[in-house]
């Protein structure tokens, strides 16, 4: 017995960098060693099957997997949901909610479906008993949405070109669709629609699995005055408990929709994007203002978005015109894009507001402009509030870079600093050697007391800085994005 065990124990002496193929010429394949296996795909655990299906890019393939058997159907649906939500979780702080919404419109490879064709979900077709329920109205279209996935979990609803509000008939179509199909949805994008909040509430109640919602250019229309809705008492409890990601695009009616949607979901959201760029709708109020108590004083106990970790706000300066802005007590990633330049007062408000997030912020992205160079007027001697967790910081360089010393005193753990604006460097490429070009770029920054270490390629899109006039922590990496325009001779 012992002898047999010794025979089986093949000990291969392996010097470093060599395992078993003595000839060292290319890989030893399974065939070379006559390896065979009867293992099938069914032998893999679920986590590995999910990983394999996760590589499928085309919805056609995921749909094919759904047709294999019940187990594969459940796997393919899981992958579809994961891909959908992954699109949400990718953090690109410089994107505005509005542009991001548009970027999610169906890619050309996807077939656009609409209710006036027959390829709508079978259940809806059956419930209406007609082949083309909206043939006469043409006012509602359903489109699959998403870069890599157009599973039924993703739905893009849009009014088409007709300017009229949704008719009652279409509301019924919508309602019928959600009734039949709502439980499939994990991501819903409403675009260019007119809805009453009560309609939206009812629709969302039929989507128990909804995790992400985008509203872009959603208004209430004239039927806000309809008698059917005037006496509705709103229920502020959440209509769908799984929803954690909300993107409020611009031109979405503030008074009757935004306010209510925020109240429905304020206690459960983890990711919030707000595009308030259409300030004409919101100029008289601000959705993130705190509440007042009976005496008219701010209610400091009102903490509505206590779970929001990713926050993106694209707005005008009105955001900081109120003292009573609700705090985001758990926010880790904050991106602020302000449309109008800040003056000294507004900048001070901004800095004070940021101090309130000092305990939780990990990534801060400030896309702001100032009206003039603030280098000398920034209140650098303000009390230093240490941002104990912040490791990434991005800020527009134009003018605002004068604030960097202010921030560096506070960001003790900073690892990455990005300056965001594009430099206009125009050189005649044909007459300029690569080394000269780099030298010119370097000298440009030397003028500003930077010391740059450039790459070797002329077509630079980034320059790594090792140090500049600021005292950096040794771990700090400073990246500046450059846009270099070459002139042809």
């Amino acid at each position: 017995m012992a002898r047999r065990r010794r025979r089986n124990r093949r000990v291969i002496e392996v010097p470093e960098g060599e395992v078993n193929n003595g000839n060292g010429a290319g890989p030893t394949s399974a065939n070379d060693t006559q390896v065979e296996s009867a293992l099938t795909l069914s032998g893999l655990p679920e986590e590995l099957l999910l990983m394999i299906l996760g590589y499928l890019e085309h919805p056609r393939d995921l749909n094919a997997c759904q047709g294999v058997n019940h187990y594969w159907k459940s796997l393919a649906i899981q992958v579809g949901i994961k891909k959908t939500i992954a699109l949400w979780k990718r953090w690109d702080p410089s994107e505005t909610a509005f542009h991001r919404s548009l970027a999610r419109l169906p890619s050309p490879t996807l077939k656009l479906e609409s209710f006036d064709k027959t390829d709508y979900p079978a259940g809806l077709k059956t419930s209406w008993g007609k082949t083309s329920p909206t043939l006469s109205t043409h006012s509602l279209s359903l489109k699959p949405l998403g870069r890599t996935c157009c599973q039924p979990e993703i739905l893009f609803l849009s009014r088409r070109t007709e300017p009229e509000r949704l008719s009652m008939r279409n509301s019924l179509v919508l309602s019928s669709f959600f009734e039949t199909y709502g439980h499939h949805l994990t991501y819903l994008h409403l675009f260019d629609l007119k809805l009453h909040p009560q309609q939206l509430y009812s629709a969302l109640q039929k989507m128990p699995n909804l995790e992400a919602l985008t509203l872009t250019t959603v208004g209430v229309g004239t039927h806000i005055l309809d008698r059917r809705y005037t006496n509705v008492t709103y229920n502020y409890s959440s209509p769908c408990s799984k929803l954690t990601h909300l993107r409020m695009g611009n031109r979405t009616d503030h008074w009757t929709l935004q306010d209510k949607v925020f109240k429905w979901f304020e206690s459960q959201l983890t990711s919030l994007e707000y595009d308030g760029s259409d300030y004409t709708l919101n100029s008289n109020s601000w959705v993130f203002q705190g509440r007042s108590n009976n005496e008219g004083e701010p209610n400091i106990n009102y903490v509505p978005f206590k779970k929001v970790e990713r926050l993106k706000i694209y707005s005008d300066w009105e955001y900081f015109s109120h003292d009573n802005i609700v705090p985001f007590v758990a926010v880790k990633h904050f991106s602020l894009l302000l449309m109008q330049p800040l003056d000294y007062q507004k900048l001070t408000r901004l800095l004070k507001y940021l101090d309130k997030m000092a305990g939780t912020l990990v990534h801060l992205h400030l896309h702001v402009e100032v009206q003039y160079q603030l280098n000398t007027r920034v209140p650098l001697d303000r009390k230093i509030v240490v941002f104990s967790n912040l490791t990434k910081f991005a800020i527009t360089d134009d003018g605002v870079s004068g604030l960097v010393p202010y921030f560096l005193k506070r960001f003790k753990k900073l690892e990455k600093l990005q300056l965001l604006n594009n430099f206009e460097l125009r050189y005649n490429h044909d007459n300029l050697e690569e080394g000269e070009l780099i030298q010119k770029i370097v000298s440009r920054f030397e003028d500003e007391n930077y010391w740059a270490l450039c790459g070797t390629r002329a077509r630079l899109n980034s320059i790594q800085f090792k140090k500049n006039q600021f005292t950096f922590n040794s771990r700090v990496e400073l990246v500046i994005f450059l846009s270099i325009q070459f002139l042809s001779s």
Partner: protein
Amino acid sequence: MALVRVISSDGAAFLVSQRLAKRSGKLKTEIETFRKSSDNSEAQPEIRIVTIRAEILRLVLQWLQQHQNDPVLPANQNEQDGRGDAEMGQSQWDRDFLAPMDLGIVMELILAANHLEVKGLLDITCKLVESKITGRTVDEIRTAFKLKSDFKGNEEEQTRLENRWCVEN
């Protein structure tokens, strides 16, 4: 050179450098555990992998050897959308390595790479299986992977109809 003895489920022992072995998350942990528990710092660790047979272990070690100078990929990179990073790291050598293998061996390699925490190998093997699904019909997938349908009645047709509205022509 510090060595470690890695023993497969069927008793074959592979003597490899610790530097190479540490490319595997599992082996690295085992080596460190051995070091902490051993009084003799010169002692050679011996790690028994009871779930991987010799031929498969040999292939894993061979892949590790080829990629011993690659940067180590973070374990959870790109995990949000449920896939790995095969596109990033697949070389011609990898393609030659995998090309002659039958599916059963690839499955065992996936299990081994997962058990030994070799992310790069796991990614390329999963991607290989995915490539055998892409573009195939339901019946072709069933045939390729020896899968049986358990749909009853018109369930399969219902599934097809449910998805028809979002599939291009």
